[in-house]
């Protein structure tokens, strides 16, 4: 399964990446599992770890960690939003 991952705002700066394309192991089915997978890279990637205040979207819609990730999805991770 190949997906695109975007990072925004302070998270983008912490990670040093605005986006990447990933091929996922078959063991990863949900958004929450993807996030844990990325956090396991260690170092700055612990910013995605459990307990960190990170929000996520799949295909430009904010969703929870239980939602399934599908091939060619656009996934985004970002801090809580502060518009207006």
């Amino acid at each position, binding site marked *: 399964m190949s997906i695109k991952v*975007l990072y*925004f*705002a*302070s998270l983008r700066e912490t990670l040093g990446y605005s986006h990447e394309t990933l091929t996922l192991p078959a063991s990863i089915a949900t958004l929450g599992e993807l996030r844990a997978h990325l956090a396991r890279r260690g170092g700055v990637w612990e910013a995605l770890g459990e307990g960190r205040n990170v929000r996520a*979207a799949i295909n*430009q*819609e*904010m969703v929870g960690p239980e939602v399934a990730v599908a091939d060619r999805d656009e996934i*985004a991770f*970002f*801090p*809580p*939003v*502060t*518009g*207006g």
Partner: protein
Amino acid sequence: MNSVSVQDADFDVGLETAALSAGRPEVGAVATFVGLVRADKLAAGGGGAVTAMTLEHYPGMTEKALEAIAAEACARWQLLGTRIIHRFGRLVPGDRIVFVGVAGSHRGDAFAACEFIMDYLKTRAPFWKKEDTPDGGRWVDAREADDAAAGRWES
């Protein structure tokens, strides 16, 4: 009937307000909101004096999120049109950030929907603010008060 713009350019409040009722004689009420960059808000962050802020957003998702909020407002109240404009990029104190305009036959619906859109926009549209200071940039945290404001529409 609903229109959304995400842009770096400023907007014209008079034209946008007039457009919500132009040629529509059933419109009796237009409620609007303009949000501006506040000098004291910037300074309240602590540290060096803040001279500007930069608004980052998620192109594509932002427009979808704002359209969804407008559609939700139309489902909750009797409305005749909505307009949302949100800027991104570098802004200085006094600059307009956001315009929300709602047209209806009656003022109660227009007021409620305008406030609802602002509350939801604060917590659901993917914008992030970074303050510029002489020491560098500083990201603005999301406010719990905004979550509370959005939450009261869910009862």
